[in-house]
């Protein structure tokens, strides 16, 4: 990835992005779906949350942390 694409990716916004409040409110539901191997279904059922988790660093961190927790990776 070069600087142009990295900058473009950072500046690009997704109108489906639901924001932090809605994404975090449903994060446990989304993570349970992903943890059972249904990532595509999770993204299809909750496109606004998927868009948000891709763009928001802190919420993305929370998603990865919760997923690691429920998958037993943080033992």
């Amino acid at each position: 990835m070069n600087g142009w694409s990295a900058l473009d990716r950072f500046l690009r916004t997704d109108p489906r992005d639901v924001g932090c409040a809605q994404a975090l409110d449903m994060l446990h539901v989304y993570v349970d779906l992903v943890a059972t191997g249904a990532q595509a279904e999770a993204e299809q059922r909750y496109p606004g949350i998927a868009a948000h988790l891709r763009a928001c660093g802190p919420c993305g961190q929370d998603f990865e942390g919760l997923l690691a927790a429920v998958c037993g990776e943080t033992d």
Partner: protein
Amino acid sequence: MSAARLDPESAEWVQALTGNGLRRDAAVTRLHELLVRIARGEVRRRGPRLQITGPELEDLAYQAAADALLAVTSKIGKFRGESRFTTWACKFVIFEVSAKTGRHFWRNPSVPMDAENWDRLPDRFGFDPALEAEWRDLLAALHRAVDEELTPRQRAIFVAIVLNDVPLDTLVIEPSSNRNAIYKMLFDARRKLRAALAANGYIDPDKSRRS
């Protein structure tokens, strides 16, 4: 919601934690142990970036687990069974770790929060120094757009997060702020900046990547 709609393990958690006596005490102890284990794993996972080690890391994990335990037991009536109980409960401890690590950065900033490290931008986005002649104008245009298109608050948030690498959660420390509000402010700033760069021909509005 009725425990009858929950999976058996979640129903057992809810029944035990909303009950009385020894069964509830045992469930609270078990939940605390789970939350401590998750918190320790999460602070370790985030630790390298935050440079937290040793006793401070342990303290942060135990505080996060204690606060999460309080949140879970006080909000258990709001658990709707949309996920496993443990996933719902672990969410609280992840959020506590998030909030506490944000405050840690605020107490130990690596750069002044209001500094403007424009020289950091090429490295931040991976621009090749050998090709500076190609991207110098783009970054100058971005700098102009930041100065001319953003509100003072949007500009301050862009500077803190993008130029100074301040974690978004650290900015939430400020009074009457929250993660959602800061994110929305940055979201609007990103949209404005991209529109300005596209209007001046620096970025193709219909193309996601430029080779």
